[in-house]
């Protein structure tokens, strides 16, 4: 099955070609050739199939498809058996044919400028359909039967009057299930990017083109970026479903895993993945895998669990037009409220607690939360987090020069933390380190430090932690009034490796089992060496980009 792509992510057409003892044959293609081209291909048939096209007369056709009659395509795309089982890709001028010849032949055609990842996705789809067809062929000669049907229909049409420009493929469509499946695959790829077929009404082939589902302001998100983000999901993140629970469950295939069903039923925007694991009685690894799967298919996004202190702001990609379908949908969902007014409220960063009016009845409050969820699902809001960076004022001796010692901590230490084991949990969510995270308090270095007191052990630990700093930095820090308190200094030293601007407040809170107020107080005490800023979390900001 060949898919031919038009614009960058949609196929131009899908073609089914077979090569056998009786020669090469193009069985089916969709969309059908246009009428004008049908006549030209008919006339060429009258001469010899191998006659040259008079290049002068051929119309400029951006699709390129109609330049190649069926017979030519069949010859071009037919492959010998030793090319089977491998990726097939043939580009002719600006048209690309992509497929996966099996014992059957299934090329896809894609326009030349398509992203290589789109092409490999097309290969993937080709292959899957081919595998399903191969299976059905072995079981009940499905393909042979369908092929016979297609050939018979083609013969029938050619035997009709020559002047009839009806494409044979149009006749095939209502009679032949495989043709309908191919048409559906093509249509789905062009629109939603999600394909679900039942070959021979039996074997399911599902496929999604992430390029259609995940887009950032008009450009598709490359699957590698998507995969990187998925790998960076943490146990403290939450899964936000994009459809209602009911709708989602209805879309699942009959033989889907019960774990998936359980997850969907127990999922909630206020629950983090770790809690979800406990509630759904699954281990964390499973949760991550299922969550990644749902996100990949565009059925859910990763957010930080909803809570009072979350701060949200209008996304730069948000469509705030008065006439957008979003505005209409919002009005239907929440009558007597309009979307632009709600969005205006988030023009300045707003926390959930500020958004809710404590004087209103609790019913009103619940609706406000629903609105926030609604807006998050449609990527209208981004969440802001606080990031902190250690930057000590430069010494007076050589101001303005960028000596090695002036390089901030991260450049010198090279990313490795000297202190807490919680640093190990910054790996991929599927690493075994994270799998042992059952509760944050267990993965907490404070257990190592003896509570209270200025014991020699504690002092030594603090010294070690501060060892990665330069002499100048150490001096400045030790001169801060707050550093005179051993407890404060110890806390500061322990958290030092977070102060590189890559870990937000909530992550520190989770990893170190600390309260927000504790951290904020610490930041305030050491503000002369810390710089604080707020922005979105780059890890999940990918999921906060708009659709379509």
């Amino acid at each position, binding site marked *: 099955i060949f898919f031919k792509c038009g614009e960058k992510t949609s196929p131009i057409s899908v073609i089914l070609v077979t090569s056998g003892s009786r020669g090469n044959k193009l069985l089916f293609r969709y969309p059908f050739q246009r009428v004008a081209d049908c006549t030209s291909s008919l006339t060429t048939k009258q001469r010899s199939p191998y006659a040259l096209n008079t290049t002068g007369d051929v119309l400029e056709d951006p699709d390129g498809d109609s330049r190649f009659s069926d017979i030519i395509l069949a010859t071009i795309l037919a492959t010998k058996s030793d090319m089977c089982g491998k990726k097939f890709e043939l580009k002719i001028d600006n048209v690309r044919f992509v497929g996966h010849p099996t014992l059957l032949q299934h090329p896809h055609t894609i326009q030349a400028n398509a992203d290589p990842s789109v092409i490999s996705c097309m290969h993937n789809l080709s292959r899957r359909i081919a595998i399903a067809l191969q299976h059905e062929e072995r079981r009940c000669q499905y393909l042979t039967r369908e092929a016979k049907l297609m050939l018979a229909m083609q013969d029938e049409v050619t035997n009709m009057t020559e002047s009839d420009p009806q494409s044979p493929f149009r006749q095939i469509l209502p009679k032949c299930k495989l043709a309908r499946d191919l048409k559906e695959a093509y249509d789905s790829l062009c629109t939603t990017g999600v394909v679900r077929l039942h070959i021979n009404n039996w074997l399911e082939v599902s496929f999604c083109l992430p390029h259609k589902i995940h887009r950032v302001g008009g450009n598709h998100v490359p699957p590698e970026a998507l995969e990187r983000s998925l790998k960076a999901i943490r146990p403290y993140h939450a899964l936000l479903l994009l459809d209602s629970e009911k709708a989602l469950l209805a879309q699942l295939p009959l033989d889907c895993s019960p774990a998936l069903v359980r997850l969907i039923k127990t999922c909630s925007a206020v629950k983090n993945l770790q809690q979800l694991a406990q509630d759904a009685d699954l281990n964390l690894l499973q949760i991550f895998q299922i969550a990644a799967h749902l996100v990949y298919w565009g059925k859910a996004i990763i957010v930080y669990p909803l809570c009072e202190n979350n701060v949200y702001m*209008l996304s730069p990609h948000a469509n705030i037009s008065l006439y957008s379908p979003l505005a209409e949908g919002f009005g239907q969902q929440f009558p007597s409220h309009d979307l632009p007014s709600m969005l205006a409220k988030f023009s300045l960063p707003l926390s959930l607690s500020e958004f809710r009016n404590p004087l209103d009845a609790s019913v009103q409050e619940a609706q406000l939360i629903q609105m926030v969820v609604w807006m998050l699902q449609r990527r209208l809001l981004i969440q802001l987090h606080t990031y902190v960076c250690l930057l000590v004022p430069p010494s007076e001796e050589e101001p303005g020069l960028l000596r090695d010692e002036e390089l901030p901590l991260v450049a010198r230490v090279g990313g490795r933390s000297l202190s807490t084991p919680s640093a190990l949990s910054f790996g991929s969510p599927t690493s075994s380190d994270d799998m042992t995270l059952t509760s944050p308090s267990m993965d907490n270095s404070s257990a190592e430090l003896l509570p209270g007191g200025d014991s020699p052990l504690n002092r030594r630990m603090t010294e070690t932690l501060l060892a990665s700093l330069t002499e100048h930095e150490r001096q400045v820090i030790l001169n801060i009034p707050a550093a005179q308190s051993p407890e404060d200094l110890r806390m500061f030293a322990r958290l030092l490796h977070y102060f590189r601007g890559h870990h937000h407040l909530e992550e520190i809170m989770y990893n170190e089992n600390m309260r927000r107020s504790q951290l904020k107080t610490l930041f305030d005490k050491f503000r002369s060496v810390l710089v604080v800023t707020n922005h979105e979390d780059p890890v999940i900001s990918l999921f906060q980009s708009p659709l379509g």
Partner: protein
Amino acid sequence: MGMSRIECIFFSEFHPTLGPKITYQVPEEYISRELFDTVQNKLITVYVHLDNYIISLLMDQTAMEKKLIGCPVCIEHKKYSRNALLFNLGLVCDARTKTCALELIVKKLSGYLTTLELESGFISNEESKQKLLPIMSTLLEELNATGACTLPIDESNTINLKLIEQRRDPLIVQEYDVPVFTQCKDHFIKSQWDLTTQQILAYIDGFRHIQKISAEADVELNLVRIAVQNLLYYGVVTLVSIFQYSNVYCTTPKVQSLIDDRSIQAECLSYVTKQGQKRACLRDVFQLYCGLTPGTTVRDLCSRYSQQVQRVDERRLIQYGLMKALIRRLQKYPVKVTRDERSRPPRLYTGCHSYDEICCKTGMSYKELDERLENDPNIIVCWK
């Protein structure tokens, strides 16, 4: 030039008695006999159908994926045995290579050979055909080394080839966009560019927007737009937004690169330091960027961080931050929310047009627009 490395150049033809074969290839034996058998129908037997199309074929050779790019030629004439001469000069490269530039080369080569054959029977004459081999060797060497090749074939024909990099289509340039040079302006060679570009060059200072450039340089707006779009395409300029002290910005996650990346640090600090001052220190500059938050204007920033801003040119600070996406501008979008059915639907106050755009289009100043909208209870403003 690592992008489009050519691994092999081959010349294949349909021999009247021997059938399809590879007559010459450099380096020798690159394409094995078995491999050629597999792909030959694509390259040779379907010449008649694929005549003059650029063909690119993916193949598996010794477990590494390669691409074969060719442009078959079919010249029909009674003088040839079988009444046609079929040949294909192609190249092989790694499958991951971007092939657009190579395809053009192949097409051009096929054109050259066709011309040579039609003029002097270059290919059909066994003696002159032998010259192909050294030609192919030179092509391979020079194209890989420098990306270009100039090779005289005979008195009247010279092959001129150059690998041209494909670039992404640039964004549309709006009249309220501000072009700013990405490199030092002194490196810019005026004479290489068209007249319009040369005319507006002096007015591109990273602060004038397109409309202003057009007015001051006395060049029609659309011409300015196109010229800047061209500069954008070649990466000579990038676009930022109009600067005003009343502007509001906020940081992006990329602001951390100022801490992580030494080269950005160095570049930034030298860019933003006030002329004639000692170099600003990283902490001050970083604090200034982090001081940009929703609700804070540049004016507010300067008064709040008056000490840090002493050695820093705040306009260049903002400019650099925008160019490197360390910060982003928060634009105001007015939206008319009214229940009144009788009033006209809003044209500009729909949430799709920013203050920048409205002011540019209507000639109002920000202040005037603000005053007008503040008094209208039906209009709300979103920032994003």
